[in-house]
């Protein structure tokens, strides 16, 4: 089994040959890309059952999309609506089973082997949901839908590891965009520079922060005294948040630069997130494509159900509940152990508190007054520091067993 990551030799070879192959065989670039994507998918499989699961996981949504779209139509019967919802529930349950969430006791009873794990399982799910939900719209708008294009969209080796999450329409429109400028020497240089910069961010800058975070985490584990432990924990949390930012944004630089050399544009996933002055703004600047995906497919449907039902007269409460659910789910999705549940709870709680505060301040100062208050330099610095601190503390549950550490300390 191939260990596919941006540090691997295989990825480096792909980064080098894909732009050349797709340029030389321009007429067959879709087929060339499909061949490479399929090769990565097959080489990363851990077992034969994984192959069967993987093929079904990818093909079923494609063939079900027209059926699901028909079932969503107003003319469809109630049973069809129920079956459609059932399909999505099954899909999410099966996803949870494949992810094997450690804190769900039910999954411990079911037979499971690590050998069925698939590379990029979560990202497959995001893209498949986007494709099946948008299918009717795509058909209506005349967007090209073919199996090879769908497979390239889902399996895209540049984005299979950790995004950015493209939408089907966006991917296909970009892939066949003939108005795109031909790659010039300057553009190639720019892309190569971005790739190099990305690698430096991942393997030098973030590696240093990771070492420091690890060092302070160890100090917290072995240290004593409330104040010194708190100070050490905050240092660990800050270094860990730097690590996450440089590691993830560096990865995005590498794949965005690489894809651009092959004639594909990936959406930017980061926009200086640590300049944010609120949690909402942070999520509009960090892993942007995931934030937009959860806004469209979790937050909007949840809030719509709430405010058309029992929260009709309690819009603000409805908004808080929808935000909490959205961020809790997004947090849980990030990883399989209980630390990610705490991370999700903290994100949900933080967003709700931040929304309550904004609402309170707007009432107290008026909309105009609140805007003026927020534009003050000192206020911006304080809000930025508070956002950063909150994000860092909640991010400390990502990648480290902070729950275990807390239990040990207690």
């Amino acid at each position, binding site marked *: 089994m191939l260990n596919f990551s941006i540090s691997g030799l295989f990825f480096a070879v792909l980064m080098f040959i894909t732009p050349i192959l797709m340029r030389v065989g321009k007429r067959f670039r879709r087929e060339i890309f499909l061949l490479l994507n399929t090769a990565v998918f097959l080489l990363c499989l851990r077992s034969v059952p994984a192959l069967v699961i993987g093929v079904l996981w990818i093909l079923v949504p494609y063939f079900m999309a027209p059926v699901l779209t028909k079932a*969503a139509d*107003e003319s469809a019967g109630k049973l069809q609506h129920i079956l459609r919802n059932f399909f999505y529930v099954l899909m999410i349950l099966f996803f949870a089973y494949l992810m094997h969430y450690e804190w769900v006791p039910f999954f411990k009873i079911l037979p499971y082997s690590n050998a069925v794990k698939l590379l990029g399982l979560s990202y497959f799910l995001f893209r498949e949901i986007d494709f099946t*939900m*948008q299918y*009717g*719209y795509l058909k209506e708008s005349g967007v090209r839908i073919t199996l090879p294009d769908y497979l390239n969209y889902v399996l895209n080796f540049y984005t299979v590891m950790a995004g950015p999450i493209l939408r089907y329409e966006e991917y296909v429109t970009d892939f066949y965009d003939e108005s795109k400028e031909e790659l010039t020497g300057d553009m190639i240089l720019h892309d190569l520079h971005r790739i190099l910069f990305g690698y430096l961010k991942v393997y030098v800058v973030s590696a240093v922060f990771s070492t420091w975070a690890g060092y302070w985490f160890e100090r917290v584990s072995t240290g004593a005294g409330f104040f010194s432990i708190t100070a050490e924990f905050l240092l660990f949390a800050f270094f860990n948040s730097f690590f996450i930012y440089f590691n993830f944004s560096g990865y995005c630089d590498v794949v965005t630069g690489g894809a651009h050399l092959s004639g594909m544009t990936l959406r930017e996933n980061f926009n200086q997130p640590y300049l944010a002055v609120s949690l909402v703004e942070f999520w509009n600047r960090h892993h942007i494509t995931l934030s937009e995906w959860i*806004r*469209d*497919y979790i*937050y*909007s*449907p949840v*809030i*719509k159900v709430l*405010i*058309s039902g029992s929260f009709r007269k309690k*819009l603000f409460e409805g*908004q808080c509940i929808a935000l909490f659910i959205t961020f809790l789910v997004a947090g849980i999705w990030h990883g399989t152990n209980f630390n990610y549940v705490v991370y999700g709870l903290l994100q949900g709680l933080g967003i709700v508190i931040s929304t309550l505060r904004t609402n309170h301040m707007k009432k107290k100062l008026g*909309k105009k007054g609140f805007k003026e208050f927020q534009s003050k330099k000192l206020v911006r610095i304080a809000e930025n520091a508070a956002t950063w601190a909150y994000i860092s503390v909640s991010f400390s549950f990502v990648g480290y067993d902070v729950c275990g550490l807390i239990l040990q300390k207690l």
Partner: protein
Amino acid sequence: MDTKLKLEQVFREVFDDEEIEITDDMTADDIDAWDSLTHVQLVVAVEEAFNCKFSTVEVMKLKNVGEFIKLIDRKTGNA
């Protein structure tokens, strides 16, 4: 009543502003209070006012008021 006029009424109620005048190319950027919450609020209010239902994707794809009017007309059979 004309779809546009009726929609304008819904906008005024949702944004609590009697002076709003909608135009076809108006977008969320033109109204300060138009965020992801008020967007869904608008959709729910329009569903009630025009007695129709919109899907998640239809809601997501709305780019301006003109598109909203077209969608309402299509749903209510006015198109």
